[in-house]
Each structure stands twice: as structure tokens, then as C-alpha cells.
């Protein structure tokens, strides 16, 4: 390795060397952390909710002039209207099952509460585990495509109904495996009793589903993203939501048929353009900010890398021009074209090497700062290593064209006037 003369030459060009090294260092530090954040966002955006998303759509509708849910009579009437809608939807061609439901994963409209092992537990106490409730019926598991891993599903006889603001006892529930593991780390959640929202009324866990995300898509919901509880209860109010599962390939047809069907059942209702939405749209809306941020950071990374590569090309081109005669002298003294090419490549490797060493320290420092100021986790070493490798490769790619131009300087240049 002919490092000594290259280092000696670099010492004579400190300004350019330091500037490009710093540029490489900053790029590495920013790009490593940005790619890590992008990776986390992409991981978040792509995590499965546990639902059969591709064949699922949601209907949100509101009755006009509906009875009040504050009276027992009104609740009964509203429930009858809801059951009428459900029956009509379940008969729709292409539909396999329908369940009333107060919300869906990622809908950002949630009913959250807490679960405790003890009756009357103080809300917010240490024994409370936060959860999101899904009020639904016996078709919920089939409609949502949830996988039961222990216990049993709801039966028609389990299903109750209540006014929207009522808080009757919840005798049974199905919870997610994540919540079951949290509440009962030693397993055997089925058959166990828990107490919801500080209530003294016991709730028996009758089943455990593999996975179901809560409606919260924002970072505030990260701590309990998989702690969902299904209650076999239809909520009665002047509005209702229905989750509809179709046969594969029947989603669009079924969605188009919903609005005229429901108007036919009862024209006194409001159904607008957003009332019938496929789950894919709910997912896209929930993660729009994450995807936008990932794209923005990706573009910034590309610009940074491009600017750094351009800097390397510019500096090397300048040095090639500046050393034109010197290159001719080297050629005259016996350097082959490949020797000149290698000279500039090794020179770049040294500059990039200084840059990436500094960049590693900066990347770690930036990550530590982000960890203390924002909800950032520790930057994995693999990101830094890949970043280092990428910067070295980018440096070599950027230097190649000017270095090849240098290698083509003819030896006779040594005899020409400077």
C-alpha cells in the first residue's frame, strides 16, 4: 500500500480534505439515523393488524330522527334498527359475514379503558393494564378474520345490547394474546376473571385471539397497541358502524351495493362518500403522516448523499486539474494508468475513512441526543456498519470518473509548460 506519499500529499491540501471528510461524516451521521427512523416507520406502517384486511370494509351511518339512546324504549328501537341493517347486509351477495362494531384497528376512534386483576381497582394504578374495547357480536371473529388461539368464540346467546352511554356489567370477553400474556404471564388466561375500568363486576375471559391492533395509530397508542378486548355487546345510538367481510374479489361490488341497500331498508339516514370505506383506505389514512415523513426523510437522504458525491467529484476533478502536470510526471517516471487510478481511489478511501470514523461518532452522538429528546430507540450497529460501507462505496463511485480522467493524462504532459 502506497499510503505514505498519499498522506504526505493530503497534508498539503488540508482544507479540501477536512471539508470533504466533514461532509462525509455529517452525511453518514444524518443518513444512518434517518434511515433508522425510516425503517421504524416502514415497520410500523407494515405491521399487520390481525384482520383479514383485503376483504374487509367498514360502513358508518347515521339515522335521521332516530329515537334517543337515553331511554330503555329508545335503546330497544335503535337496536331493532341496527339488527334490521345487519340482516340486510348479511344477505348481500358476496358478503360472508357482518358484525356491528364501534371501531376498527387504525380508525383512530377508540374506546379505551383498563383491566385489573382486582375489583374496584383505582384507575391509573399499577395493577391496571390499558386496553381498547371493541363492542361487537358473535360474528366478529369471522368478519374480522381473527384467529382464535384459546377458548371459544362468542355465541349468539352471549350477545347483549346497551345504550351508547350505559355501563352495564361485562360478564365475558375475548382478549388478544398480547393482553393475555400481560395480564397472565404464566398463561392460562381462559377462564380467569378480570375487572374492567375499576368495576366490581367480574369479566371472565372466554377466548384469546392471536392478534388485533387497537384503533390508535399514533405514537400515544404504542404502549398498548396490541391490548384489545372484544365485548359481545351491540352499542345502540343514533349512528352505527358495521364491519363487512366479503368473498375474495367481491369487495368493490359489495361496497357499491351497500348504500342503496341501506337506503332501501330505511331511507331516514345519512350515508355520504366516506360512509363506505375499504380497510385499505383506513390503513392508508392512518399511516399517511408516517409514509409522508419516510418519503421526506428518504428524499433528504438522497439529496445529502448526492451533494456529498458531487463534492467528491468536484474536489477530485479540481485536484486532477491542479495536478495535471504532476500526473504527467508520474506517468513519465513509470506509473501505469492503473497506478494513477489507484492513487486517486486510495486518496479518496483515506479521506472517506477519516470521514466515516468521525461520522460513526457523530451518528452515535446524534442518536443519543434523539433518544433523550424524542421517542427514539438505540441505533443498531448494523445501520452504522451498512452506512459506513455505503459511504465508502459511494466515495469510490464518485471518484471513479475524475480518477479515470487523471489516468488518461498522457506522460508527455510532463514536458509541457505548466
Amino acid at each position, binding site marked *: 500500500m*502506497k499510503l*505514505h*506519499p498519499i498522506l*504526505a*500529499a493530503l*497534508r*498539503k*491540501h488540508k482544507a479540501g480534505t477536512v471539508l470533504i471528510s466533514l461532509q462525509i461524516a455529517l452525511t453518514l451521521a444524518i443518513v444512518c439515523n434517518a434511515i433508522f427512523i425510516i425503517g421504524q416507520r416502514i415497520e410500523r406502517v407494515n405491521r399487520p393488524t390481525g384482520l383479514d384486511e383485503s376483504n374487509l370494509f367498514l360502513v358508518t351511518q347515521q339515522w335521521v330522527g332516530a329515537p334517543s339512546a337515553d331511554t330503555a324504549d329508545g335503546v330497544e328501537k335503535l337496536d331493532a334498527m341496527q339488527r334490521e341493517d345487519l340482516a340486510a347486509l348479511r344477505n348481500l351477495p358476496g358478503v360472508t359475514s357482518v358484525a356491528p362494531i364501534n371501531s376498527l384497528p387504525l380508525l383512530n376512534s377508540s374506546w379505551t379503558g383498563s383491566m385489573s386483576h382486582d375489583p374496584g381497582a383505582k384507575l391509573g394504578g399499577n395493577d391496571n393494564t390499558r386496553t381498547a374495547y371493541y363492542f361487537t357480536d358473535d360474528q366478529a371473529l369471522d368478519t374480522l378474520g381473527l384467529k382464535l388461539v384459546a377458548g371459544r368464540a362468542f355465541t349468539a346467546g352471549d350477545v347483549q345490547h346497551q345504550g351508547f352511554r350505559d355501563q352495564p356489567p361485562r360478564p365475558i370477553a375475548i382478549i388478544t394474546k398480547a393482553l393475555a400474556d400481560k395480564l397472565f404471564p404464566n398463561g392460562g388466561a381462559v377462564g380467569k376473571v378480570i375487572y374492567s375500568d375499576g368495576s366490581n363486576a367480574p369479566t371472565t375471559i372466554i377466548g384469546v385471539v392471536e392478534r388485533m391492533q387497537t384503533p390508535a395509530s399514533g405514537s400515544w397508542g404504542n404502549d398498548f397497541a396490541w391490548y384489545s378486548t372484544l365485548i359481545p355487546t351491540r352499542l345502540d345510538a343514533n349512528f352505527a358502524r358495521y364491519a363487512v367481510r366479503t368473498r375474495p374479489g367481491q369487495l368493490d361490488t359489495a361496497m357499491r351495493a351497500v348504500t342503496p341497500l341501506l337506503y332501501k331498508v330505511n331511507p331516514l339516514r345519512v350515508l355520504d362518500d366516506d360512509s363506505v370505506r375499504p380497510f385499505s383506505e383506513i390503513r392508508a389514512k392512518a399511516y399517511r403522516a408516517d409514509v409522508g415523513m419516510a418519503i421526506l426523510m428518504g428524499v433528504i437522504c438522497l439529496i445529502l448523499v448526492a451533494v456529498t458525491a458531487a463534492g467528491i467529484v468536484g474536489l477530485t476533478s479540481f485536484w486532477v486539474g491542479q495536478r495535471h*502536470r*504532476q500526473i504527467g*510526471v*508520474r*506517468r*513519465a*517516471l*513509470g*506509473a*501505469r*494508468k492503473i*497506478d494513477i487510478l489507484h492513487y486517486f481511489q486510495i486518496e479518496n478511501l483515506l479521506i472517506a475513512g477519516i470521514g466515516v470514523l468521525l461520522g460513526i461518532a457523530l451518528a452515535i452522538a446524534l442518536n443519543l441526543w434523539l433518544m433523550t429528546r424524542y421517542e427514539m430507540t438505540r441505533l443498531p450497529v448494523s445501520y452504522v456498519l451498512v452506512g459506513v460501507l455505503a459511504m465508502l462505496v459511494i466515495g469510490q463511485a464518485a471518484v471513479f470518473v475524475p480518477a479515470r480522467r487523471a489516468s488518461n493524462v*498522457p*506522460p*508527455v504532459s*510532463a*514536458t509541457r*509548460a*505548466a
Partner: protein
Amino acid sequence: MLKMTHLSKVYRTEVVETYALRDFNIDVKEGEFVAVTGPSGSGKTTFLTIAGLLETFTGGEYHLDGVEVSNLNDNARSKIRNEKIGFIFQAFNLIPDLNVFDNIEVPLRYRGMKSAERKQRIMDSLERVGLASRAKHYPAELSGGQQQRVAIARALAGSPRLLLADEPTGNLDTQMARGVMELLEEIHRDGATIVMVTHDPELAARAQRNVHIIDGQVVDLAEEPRFHAVKAGNRE
């Protein structure tokens, strides 16, 4: 050592062809000290660049140390330049970023020589030109004469078969030029083959033999009365 036969060098543009050398013939024997003279634009430097394999030629033959060089590729030409030819340029052509030691080391590194041998050769050649104490100095810290001595040391370090000097004293004052010329004469006495291009008749006269070029051709000075005054004789 160096033999060119009917050699030509043509520079072509879209509209014109210029003959820098035409039917050029020269034969330099091993151990000779030949001065090549001629007016500006006569082709002296073109001859030297072709002799040093810095440039290719258009026609004819060129044998260097018994090897016909016209068909050699770039790598082979680089190898010959590195191993068989030592260059001394008018502008010294030292690399300003490197100190004296590193400058002399440049061609030795391209030869792939081991560190210990490189160091020995560098110090020997610096001793020979009287600059051993300046090994760590940079070119800018030396006088013109000292820089040219470093360039000579660089040329000598590789033990070349042929030393090509292009106006070696052209950038030096009289005293420094005399010192450099004495050094070249000493190197010649030690057995080196030297071809020196110069426009200075006094320097040319100190060479063993003169070759005069006019319009890209070697001319016989005996047939050119106006050059009788500078014709090289058997001065030694």
C-alpha cells in the same frame, strides 16, 4: 542503445498535417553523451519525448536497448520508462507535495522495489548529487540548482540505461548550470548513456557528440557552413 530509423511524427488536425519529425535517423551508442541541438520548433523536444516513450510516433522504427518499441502497449512502455530511462526536465518537475526523499522514491515505488532497497538507493543518489542533508526538505525550500540536482538524483536512483535531459540548465543561472553540467559529465564518465537536448552551443560543445536538427530532420553540420562554429569536434 537508441536507434531511430526513418522515423516520423505527424500532428494532424482536420485541415493540416504538420511533420514534427520527418525521415529522422539517429543512432546513439551505449556510453555516449550526445547533445541534440537545433532552433526552436525544429523537433528537438519531440525527438526527446519519443525517445523517452512519452509519446508515440507515426512511422519508422525505434529500437531502444535492442527492443522495437512501436508495438508496445501502454503498460509495457511505462515499464521501460520506469526501468531503463531516467528523465531530467528543464522545469525539474519535482512533485511539490512531496519532500526530496519521497520525490526520489516515486519511480522506485512504481517498480515495486522493497523499502530497504529504495532507501539505500535514494540515499546513495542524494550523496552523489551532494544533497544527502536535504532529504526531508520540500522542493520549494531548495534553490533551482538544488532542485535540478534532486531531479538528477531521482533519475539516477533507478539505475537507468539511458538518461534523457531536456534543457537541464535552461532554468538555472550560469553558476548553477555549470554545477549541473559538471554533474552530468561525471555521470557520463561513470558509464551512463546521456542524450541532452539544448539550444546552448556552449553546453552542447561539452557533449561527446552533437546532433543537429532542422525542420524535423538530422542534418550534417559539415554541409551547413553557418553551423561550423558550433559543430562538435573531438574535444575530449
